[in-house]
């Protein structure tokens, strides 16, 4: 299978990329690593008329820490995240994406902008309460993760905007857990649960739980977070809270998982992710 025909541009500057994007309209697409877009194009499920390759645009790479937050260039491949253990749960989740070859090409910006609720990084961005920077013809704006993912394959990125950078609070002092369930390790998550917790002597000061592939967007397991806030984190409290992991979700069924099974998995994985995060 091969893509339908398209025109191609590899601009040298971000402004040029944004200009081309504006001119190309709905039929123009940005190309980063291409590992979300090209597979769709090969199956002709996507047929853009213009691809704007960001590979020559300077300043879209790099991982650096500033003021307690990580700034990650949109073109940073998953493999780089995976090999940056200081990124904590983001490194863990990135290391479970597909396979090594895909991680060498796929990028954080591409993955987030694609907005697939089955991919690993969106829920992590949500529980880290990170944000992304979008740049368009009118300038730059920052969108909080809670507002970024809008629907299945729909994000806050406008047709004429480029996702340039991801900001991820450093989560110092948090424990984390990542539990991904799939049939084969190279598969998308059937369900995944990410969790970060900050504990004090009195109990959980901050608990955040994210759900992958449990709806049309990544989700926060609000009921679980609520149930554990201020509570001591132990096997019983976690098990009890995790029972609410699927509350309010309406996951799509597929060949290998009914909605009911996915909700069950969410509860199981939530318990395991929280135990891992709590160091139990």
């Amino acid at each position, binding site marked *: *299978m091969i893509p339908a025909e398209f025109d191609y541009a590899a601009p040298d500057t971000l402004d040029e990329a944004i200009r081309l994007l504006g001119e190309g309209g709905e039929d123009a697409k940005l190309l980063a690593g291409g590992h979300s877009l090209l597979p769709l194009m090969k199956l002709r499920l996507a047929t853009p008329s213009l691809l704007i390759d960001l590979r020559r645009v300077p300043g879209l790479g790099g991982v650096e820490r500033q003021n307690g937050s990580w700034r990650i260039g949109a073109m940073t491949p998953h493999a780089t995240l995976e090999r940056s253990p200081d990124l904590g749960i983001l490194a863990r989740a990135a290391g479970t994406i597909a396979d090594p070859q895909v991680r060498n090409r796929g990028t954080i910006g591409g993955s987030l902008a694609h907005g697939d609720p089955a991919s690993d990084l969106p829920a992590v961005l949500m529980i880290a309460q990170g944000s992304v920077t979008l740049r368009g013809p009118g300038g730059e704006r920052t969108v909080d993760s809670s507002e970024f993912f809008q629907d299945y394959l729909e994000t806050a990125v406008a047709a004429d905007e480029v996702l340039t950078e991801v900001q991820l609070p450093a989560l110092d002092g948090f424990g984390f857990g990542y539990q991904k369930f799939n049939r*084969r390790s190279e598969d998308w998550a059937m369900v995944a649960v990410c969790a970060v917790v900050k504990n004090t002597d009195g109990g959980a000061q901050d608990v955040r739980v994210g759900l992958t592939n449990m709806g049309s967007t990544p989700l926060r397991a609000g009921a679980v977070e609520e149930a554990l806030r201020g509570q001591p984190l132990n096997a019983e409290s976690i098990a009890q809270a995790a029972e609410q992991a699927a509350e309010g979700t309406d996951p799509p069924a597929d*060949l*290998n*998982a009914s909605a009911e*099974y996915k909700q*069950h998995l969410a509860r*199981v994985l939530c318990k395991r992710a929280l135990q891992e995060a709590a160091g139990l």
Partner: protein
Amino acid sequence: MSAEEAGGGVATEVSEVAAQTAEQRQAPAPSNHVGQAIRRKEDPRLITGRARYIDDISLPGTLWAALVRSPEAHARITSIDTQAASSRPGIHAVFTGEDMADLGGPLPMAWVPPGVEVKNPEHWPLAKGTVNHVGDPVAVVLGEDRYAVIDAAEDVVVQYEPLPVVTDPEKALEGAPFVHEQLGTNKVHEWSLPGGDVEAGLAEADVVIERRVVNHRTAGAPIEPRGVLADYRAGSLTLWTSTQVPHFVRLFLAILLGMSEERVRVIAPEVGGGFGSKLQVYGEEVLAAWCSRKLERPIKWIETRTENMAVAHQGRDQISHVKMGARRDGTVTAFHVKIIADFGAYNMLLTPLIPSLGAFVMGGCYAIPNVQTDIVGVFTNKAPTDAIRGAGRPEATHMVEVTLDQMAAELGMDPVEIRRKNFIPADSFPATVATGVIYDSGDYNKTLDRLLEHIDLAAFRREQEELRSKGVFRGIGLSTYTEICGLAPSRVTGPGGVGVQAGGWESAMVRVHNTGAVTVYTGSSGHGQGHETAFAQIVADRLGVDPSVVEVIHGDTGTGPEGRNTYGSRSLAVGGEALARCATKVAEKSKAIVADQLEASAEDVELTDGKFSVKGSPDKGMTLAEVAGAAYLNLVPEGMEPGLEETTFYDPENFVFPFGAHACIVDVDRDTGKTKVVRYVAVDDCGRAINPLLIDGQVHGGIVHAIGQALYERVHYDEDGQLVTGTFVDYALPTAAELPSFETDRTETPSPVNSLGAKGVGEAGTIAASAAVTNAVIDALRPLGVNYINMPLTPMRVWEAIGQANGGASA
């Protein structure tokens, strides 16, 4: 590369062989290569990227073909508009089924069992009138550019009038809708293999159990999809195709194109795996040849994976109702199996035969006096099924091995004990079993004993108990199998026997060159098994040379004698034996020449340490090179032809019956239902080992093929006949990350059928393993109340089973 170069089939490019001096070639070699784990002669070209698979071969002036395929599972074609596609730049032609009226007939089905009616609707390379499954080809687009023909194919506008769809074989048997309206039924045929009296056997049983055994549909999924390059020039056709059966393809191309057979040459270049899915005469092969003749241009078609998943023939897909009776002491008295076999939309080359292959060994390695298999074949609006690795025998083994474990549980017996109780005793071979076939040799306790040397069952049970108390559900499953392979002999498989319209023999030709180097031609057609190495070992020993100077040519109908190719684990036991016999003929002639040269009696000439020497005078002798020198100088005995070359056709007296004992250990996560294979031990007996390295490799791959089916793989169609598992995203072949390393061991019980003492091993792992995995999962789940479960043992299915066993509550 030129066509001539490509025509060399699979010529070895081993640099170290090429670098050998004539002196080295002539050096005598001791006859001890058989049995050695020699690394493969094939590998240098494969590991350096220098092999030539079908898509690596190019001819000048080639036009690419892309097929327009049906998105409908069942529909009447009301119109096909090719105008837009034809008028695109670089497009030379678009053809539909109506354009191929000059074809000699529909695609072949080669099973005509005596006295059995098999409904066989016409099946054309391009659909005529109706489409009957998703992917059924409707038109072909031919043009200059590989990418442009795909674009043009999208511009062919086909109007379909949808017809009612049936995908469930049990519903299909109940009546309309019919896949082929003109037949008025979806039933293809009925076939039975009675052995003894199952009703009487069940009546004398103390316990009778019944199970519904579903052996779901799977894909062959070789990593190389199919492909064809057809070159029709000046009245002759050369066709390269990624096939297991070039000789069958040639025969049917000649028939369907109305060509004289000598004008058709079919070459299987390097073939990237087959697993049965390339044991076929496919419409695309006929179509490419027909287009090449029509347009007088070479035609190339390379299948995409998406096409392969939709249209390459698939396997298994049986629903069976089994009934087993046993006495309290565990003696099995009867086994009755009723199979509904889902054939999909058409009969392919051997489709209706496949379930019958399992019937012969339905009693497994047990002395069950009454065994009967009743088969009903059914059409549905799905891709056709045919042989996939094991072809009927994995299904049979699964049924007998899983049901036997079910019986053991019913009787409160240990799975080991019930097996030992029923094994055919080692001293009763050759053993005629209830189904009428004669098992050539076996010692089932020996392989089981060896298996239990690797696994301490008592210790395992203690460990299992401990783990359960920690919430880990571990289980062990056994499979003690035998299978029937070495497909031949003609008297059983052929027209007068089961009804396959082909002989089951194999051919060989051994040519010793002037220098003593050897080229051999085999009619079997390897595609990864290691023919070039194992066959060289066999021939080398019989001629006193090193295997490195024995070149094995296969897969080309333009060289060597007629052949019957590779499937059914037949290459070694039939093709290898043919070569052994042929090399022996050459050795006999060599002895006569040596006797003549050295003035000795031929009976006194023996081959020792690579020399044909006179008994008692070891210094007096000739190497093969010296014999060849004499033979080509016509220094041969009076009345003997010059030269040193022989041809053999070998049709064995019987099948061969490999056997073994496998054990699988799994952990099941009770919370998620996910199963992980933590240990797998396989003890196989495939007779005398020719090359242990190759045997282990075949066993490893065979096991994973079956683990794949048991835990991961499943071809699934929805109710509308849409293929849900159309790519490698959804059709889950296991990766290295899902699997453990395997422990393999071997016993050697020679087959009396052939002089090598060898049996087949290409399918054994696949035949054995699905039952071992399934029995292991059931063993793990028994404390949770799950006593029986059908494949595929996907996490959700296991989780649901646990939930149902606990009164419907989620685990």
